[in-house]
């Protein structure tokens, strides 16, 4: 029988029509009349002692059910370092930190009550920059850092300092590397914190039932982490915490940390378990909930005259904000991949996560990679310039290839990394790179091209795992149940395609369980790290194999033949050499009934699971180990038009070539990469957190925090290289985050060329260009 492919096909996403008709439901769309509403009072100071909080007027307001502060069940949360009270206690460490929570009959009442709470602060010196944080006599943000509990292994906070974590990479011999280098260049880089800016703000509801079950409804990309963390923090048996997640309105890493869920739980507990909703305003979502890391770095790179990189020395400081959260893991991720996709024998890297009195951070698309890639890829262009070499040639010469060792001394293979050289060569064609990279137009405008390579692996716990359950319906269709959260990338549909391909059936006959319920769906670590298709996809394949085994077993009895003689296609189990002899799925899914009414078998349930293989924690002194299953590599370019008179620019074209192993859904994959590219151009050109001189975040609304809008977007070109990853589903590798990674660097390389100035910080606004070019002086003419 002919095979109809279900992968490499543009299958419409399963929830497409729900999303264009308003039928799609997100967490904040559900309201019940018994819901109470919580609002947070947040800190107006970046660093201060709380001398007193007077909540009496708020409590007495009609319609207010409860007011709680940090003294209500005081505990410290944190998946790596337990340093964060869900509601601040005794002191505040960032502007926007929750201090008190009012629960009232309506949102309006709660907001009214918030205004009646009186807080007496005693301001403390503000650690408002990385430089201030790492000074030897710096103000300590966590005086008790040494006594905090660290639930995760290999996190190394330094007591008596603001250092939350330090990862070291010591690879090769630096003296040898420098001795072999003819050219050595050094540079410093700076990247501000910024926001995920998912269109749906973070929100949760909680209720506590008389039997002790805690039900959390939340907009989270990590329902099982919510369950685990809540269970541990408040001593609730894990099975009693039930977390339900519907469609999520964008996440980008920002919904992987447990935050509003704690507040909702505490608020519900304070009112006897009634349902309480916590919904961030946009301002709270920006300033109170965690953001993206800032980064400062110093890089030194050495190469031979022929352009072979011999040594890399780098220091990275990630601005982690006031609490550790996931920050230390991003410092680790930066160090682990610090070479970029290049073979560098000798590497010395120190990567720190440091506390400041800024908004605390969590994972953000790229997990630190967009940030270090900016530094490394600017260095590549600087090195190419000093060697008088084409930047693309320099990258080709050093491109990572099979047999090389990563900074963590993990072995590179074609399967676990893909083919960077092919990506670069394809990019070269798509950009017409051989033409002049800087062209002065007749109207005085300057057109320029810049490029960047990237790579990224995941940084998961070594035991991250995923499960899948398949059940069948009497119409022969299959229900696919897993805990990947549909945050936007269409992974539920991708997984349905993988299942359809494996079962050789129509993808329309596969129903995905869209919502996640931790009591109903099997565990999935978190919907993060571009690992969903890889991890859950592998579990889907195993579940399908389990299903096929069971279907063939029962069909072999019905059809009186060995199971090995049977194949499966189009919801039928048939004799391979006599396809007209078959039994349909629908006749066996709940057991098979003979004509006389006797039955055999029973309900068929397929199950599959996947756990990360051979990951190793990094050695504390050398960084030797393995953080992720594989890398994904690629190359990107940006073409701009620069106006040298007005210091402005337009984005003309943005190109990505990425080795995804196997494209499962071409349009979905292209859209994911383009969306990442758009975010990357946002980082490159405008997105940043602006703190005033006392650490107050100034751009907390979408009027001041600027995103790319329609019409500012360039032409996008995306192309794929497919070097299969042998342990990926049908060869597919992770790609969800990667579109963002090289964009800031490619843009900065283009504008540096066009404006004839070195831009080593982002965002590169027209104002920054003007300041750089003129020293910030107005031209009176």
């Amino acid at each position, binding site marked *: 029988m002919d095979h109809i492919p279900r992968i490499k096909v543009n299958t*419409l996403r399963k*929830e*497409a*029509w*729900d*999303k*264009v*008709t*308003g*039928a*799609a*439901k*997100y967490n*904040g*769309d559900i*309201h019940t009349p018994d819901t109470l509403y919580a609002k947070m009072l947040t800190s107006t100071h970046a660093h201060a002692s709380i001398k007193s909080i007077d909540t009496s007027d708020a409590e007495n307001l009609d319609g207010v059910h409860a007011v709680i502060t940090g003294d209500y069940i005081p505990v410290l949360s944190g998946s790596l370092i337990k340093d964060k009270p869900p509601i601040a206690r005794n002191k505040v460490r960032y502007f926007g930190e929750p201090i008190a929570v009012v629960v009232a009959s309506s949102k*309006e009442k709660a907001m009214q009550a918030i205004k009646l709470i009186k807080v007496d602060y005693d301001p403390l010196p503000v650690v408002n920059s990385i430089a201030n944080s790492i000074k030897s006599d710096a103000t300590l943000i966590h005086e008790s850092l040494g006594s905090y509990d660290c639930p995760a292994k290999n996190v190394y906070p330094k007591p008596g300092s603001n250092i939350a974590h330090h990862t070291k990479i010591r690879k090769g011999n630096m003296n040898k590397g420098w001795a072999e280098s003819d050219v050595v260049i050094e540079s410093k880089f700076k990247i501000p914190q910024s926001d995920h*800016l*998912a*269109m*749906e*703000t973070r929100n949760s509801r909680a209720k506590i039932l008389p039997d002790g079950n805690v039900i959390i409804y939340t907009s989270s990309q990590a329902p099982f982490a919510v369950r685990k963390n809540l269970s541990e923090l408040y001593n609730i048996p894990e099975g009693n915490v039930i977390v339900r997640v519907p*469609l*999520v*309105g*964008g*996440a*980008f890493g920002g919904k992987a940390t447990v935050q509003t869920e704690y507040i909702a739980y505490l608020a519900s507990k304070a009112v006897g378990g009634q349902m309480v909703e916590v*919904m961030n*305003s*946009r301002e709270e979502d920006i300033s109170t909930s965690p953001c993206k890391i800032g980064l400062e770095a110093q890089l030194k790179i050495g190469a031979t005259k022929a352009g072979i990189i011999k040594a890399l020395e780098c220091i990275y400081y990630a601005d982690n904000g006031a609490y550790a959260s996931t920050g230390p893991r991003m410092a680790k991720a930066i160090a682990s991949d610090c070479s970029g996709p290049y073979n560098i024998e000798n590497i010395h890297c120190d990567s720190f996560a440091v506390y400041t009195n800024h908004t605390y951070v969590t994972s953000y698309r790229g997990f630190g990679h967009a940030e270090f890639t900016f530094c490394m890829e600017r260095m590549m262009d600087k090195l190419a310039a000093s060697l008088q070499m084409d930047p693309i040639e320099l990258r080709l010469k050093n491109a990572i290839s099979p047999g090389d060792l990563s900074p963590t001394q993990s072995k590179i293979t074609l399967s676990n990394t893909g083919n960077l050289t092919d990506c670069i060569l394809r990019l070269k064609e798509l950009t017409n790179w051989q033409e002049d990279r800087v062209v002065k137009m007749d109207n005085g405008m300057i057109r320029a091209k810049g490029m960047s390579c990237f790579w990224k692996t995941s940084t998961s716990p070594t035991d991250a795992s995923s499960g899948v359950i398949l059940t069948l319906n009497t119409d022969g269709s299959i229900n696919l149940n897993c805990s990947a959260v549909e*945050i*936007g*990338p*269409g992974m539920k549909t991708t997984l349905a395609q993988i299942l359809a391909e494996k079962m050789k059936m129509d993808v329309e006959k596969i129903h995905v369980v869209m919502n996640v319920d931790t009591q109903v769906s099997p565990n999935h670590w978190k919907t993060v790290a571009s690992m969903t298709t890889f991890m859950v996809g592998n579990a889907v394949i195993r579940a399908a194999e389990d299903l096929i085994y069971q279907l063939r077993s029962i069909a072999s009895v019905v059809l009186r033949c060995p199971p090995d003689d049977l194949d499966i296609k189009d919801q039928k189990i048939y004799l391979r050499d006599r396809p007209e002899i078959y039994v349909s799925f629908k006749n066996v899914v709940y057991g098979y009934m003979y004509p006389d009414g006797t039955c055999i078998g029973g309900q068929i349930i397929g199950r599959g699971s996947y756990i990360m293989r051979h990951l190793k924690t990094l050695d504390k002194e050398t960084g030797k180990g393995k953080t992720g299953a594989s890398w994904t590599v690629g190359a990107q370019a940006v073409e701009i038009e620069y106006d040298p008179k007005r210091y402005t620019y337009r984005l003309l074209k943005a190109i990505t070539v990425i080795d995804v192993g196997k494209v499962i859904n071409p*349009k*979905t994959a*292209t*859209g*994911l990469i*383009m*969306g990442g*590219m*758009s*975010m990357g151009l946002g980082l490159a050109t405008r997105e940043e957190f602006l703190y005033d001189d006392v650490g107050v975040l100034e751009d907390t*609304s*979408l*009027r001041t925090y600027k*995103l*790319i*809008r*329609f*019409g500012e*977007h360039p*032409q*996008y070109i995306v192309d794929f290289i497919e070097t299969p990853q042998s342990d990926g589903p049908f060869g597919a590798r992770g790609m969800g985050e990667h579109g963002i990674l090289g964009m800031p660097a490619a843009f900065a390389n283009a504008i540096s060329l066009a404006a004839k100035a070195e831009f080593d910080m982002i965002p590169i606004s027209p104002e920054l260009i003007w300041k750089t070019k003129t020293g910030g002086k107005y031209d009176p003419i």
Partner: protein
Amino acid sequence: MLEISDSTIITLNVNGKDRKIVAKPSDILLHTLRKELGLTGAKPGCENGDCGACTILVDDWPIKSCLMLTVEAIGKRILTVEGLNDAPIQQAFVENWGFQCGYCTSGFLMVCHSLSKIHPNADEQTIQNWLQSNLCRCTSYDEIENAIKSILKWEVYYERTGRK
């Protein structure tokens, strides 16, 4: 002039039907649509008029429903995404992968639908002016551009401008 001082029963014309609802003078249309009528297609994204996720049509023109009082809508025709009823733009968004998470989609659909009715021959600049009102964080806007262009009468536009 209508004068109300407390919760009052008012009639709104939503998606072609008159609906009686209870509203306070301070209620904003976004919340009334979502909570009183269960029409949750319009989303809160900033409640400040910056993101456009709550866009609906009032007498055929796009309005950010977070910036409109419920009582201001009395006597006007309100159209939400739930009332689009197989409008060409819905199919166009599906076919052009015009969304990922879907949260901003209702708002974009309403702007595009209105644009296609009011300026069926809209040129590039008009499209840009209209669609800049809304934010999307997942797509690159390129997909949305393809979707809107696929339903506009571009043949007319090509003829008029001689451009393609």
